[in-house]
């Protein structure tokens, strides 16, 4: 059965904007992105919205639905309370371009600042390496990231405190964890983590974990283990002593 629902969509650009109400009918099985497309086709032809795969894998349609960062293509209408207007607005941690579209290029600039993968000398004469599955299990979780940047958006360090120059955000802490914990990698990123990448800004609110559409346990499995490695290196005198005295080999 069709139902009439009001959508309160942000219309504007970098100079400002406002919420505009659109009322439309929805049918069973729709996701928020479907409704945005319907409004775009029937009521607001100039409504800007970024999307691509419609399958929760490209990370393009990130927005805030009823105040929480979500992929519009993965937010089913039957999970929302349609008795009240449904709010759709762009991510707040990035500059607005127009309507629901934001400029996420800051993220790509941040990624270039992280030290690249530096594998050890190959294990075999043909230039290949040998790894055990259990050694890569941990980092494979981090490889699920689709770079939708919802975690960056919900992180209050970026969203509210605008620490973009001092903090790389949860997405790139996950990226760093994937490199730092890789069994072949030999690079040391701890000094950057502590200083330029600002891991100390994270105060473990776990909002990034809550919004991740790939269900990556960002805080517990990536950020806290990296914080512990920083503690090993900079804040643990017993650890330094143990490293100096333990048998090598």
């Amino acid at each position, binding site marked *: 059965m069709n139902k009439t629902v009001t959508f309160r969509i942000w219309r504007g650009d*970098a100079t400002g904007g406002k919420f505009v109400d659109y009322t439309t009918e929805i049918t069973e099985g729709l996701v928020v992105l479907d409704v945005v497309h319907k409004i775009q086709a029937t009521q607001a032809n100039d409504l800007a919205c970024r999307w691509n795969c419609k399958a929760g894998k490209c990370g393009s349609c990130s927005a*805030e639905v*009823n*105040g*929480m*960062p979500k992929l519009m293509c993965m937010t089913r209408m039957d999970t929302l*309370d349609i008795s*009240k207007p449904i*709010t759709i*607005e762009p991510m*707040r*941690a*990035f*500059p*607005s371009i127009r309507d629901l579209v934001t*400029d996420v290029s*800051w993220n790509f600039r941040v990624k270039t600042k992280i030290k690249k993968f530096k594998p050890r000398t190959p294990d075999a004469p043909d230039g290949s390496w040998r790894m*055990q599955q*259990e*050694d890569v299990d941990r980092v494979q979780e981090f490889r699920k990231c689709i770079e939708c940047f919802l975690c960056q958006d*919900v992180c*209050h*360090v970026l*969203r*509210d*405190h*605008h*620490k*973009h*120059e001092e903090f790389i955000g949860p997405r790139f802490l996950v990226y760093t964890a994937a490199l730092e*914990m*890789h*069994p072949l*990698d030999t690079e040391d990123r701890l000094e950057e983590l502590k200083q330029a990448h*600002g891991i*100390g*800004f*994270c*105060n*473990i*609110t*776990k*909002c990034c974990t*809550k*919004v991740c559409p790939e269900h990556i346990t960002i*805080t*517990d499995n990536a950020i*806290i*283990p990296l914080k*512990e*490695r920083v*503690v*090993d290196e900079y*804040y*643990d005198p*017993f650890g330094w002593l143990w490293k100096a005295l333990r048998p090598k080999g």
Partner: protein
Amino acid sequence: MPYADTLPAQRKFGQTTRPDAWWIQPLLVFLGFSAFIVYSTWAGVQGTNYFLDAQGQDYLSPFYSPELWGRTGHSLFGATQPSWWPAFIKFSPAFLIMWIPAGFRFTCYYYRGAYYKAFWADPINCAVGEPRKTFLGERYFPLIIQNVHRYFLYLALIFIVLLSHDAWRGLWFTDATGKHFGVAVGSLVLIINAVLLASYTLGCHSLRHLVGGFLDSKSKAPTCAKAYSCVGCLNKRHMMYAWFSLFWVGFTDLYIRLCSLGIWHDVRLF
């Protein structure tokens, strides 16, 4: 133009487009932690009614264990307060040890996230406006001290042994003919307390790192890999054990206190 100037302005405290009751969770956490802090401080200051031996039991409140100086059979160094204790400050055996579990919980990764939200509103909940414009995180004093967590962990691990020993002593009852094994409701309360505290402590993020998380190739250290897996299993439910153990340690003290005052009566099961 600075990048921050291109971003939407920071929202005011509590401002959000979330229609759900986002304030309930931080409110419940605030009330739960506050209730525990008030009760445990009050119980620690009392210095009395923390031991039960009325019917041959040997129950010691976890807020007072280990009893370094005190008047019960658990006292390690003597039956009075330490000689160096300032005369103008009331002595309670709890003062000497309560800072250890308190420090462990205060610096715990789960509790940090929870009380930053509930007590400091930083943020009060996800995607909800904050009261302050400045933010230092855990990079600078005082919160940089949170990095001491693993040292509190080392001490908390000793407490697991001590509280398990207390639970064991809670299974022995003295009468005119000597000591006999038995189980009373209080014995079960002490055992559950030790189990919950162990489940919380052994699921610590720092412990997970120290037993194997620091390694990139765990296949070369199978013992570390197994330990990492075991701690990781408890770590997945760290929040649950944090709450259960917090509630139960307070209840254990309350049970012994009320039995000691004669308000409740410890029932011997066998």
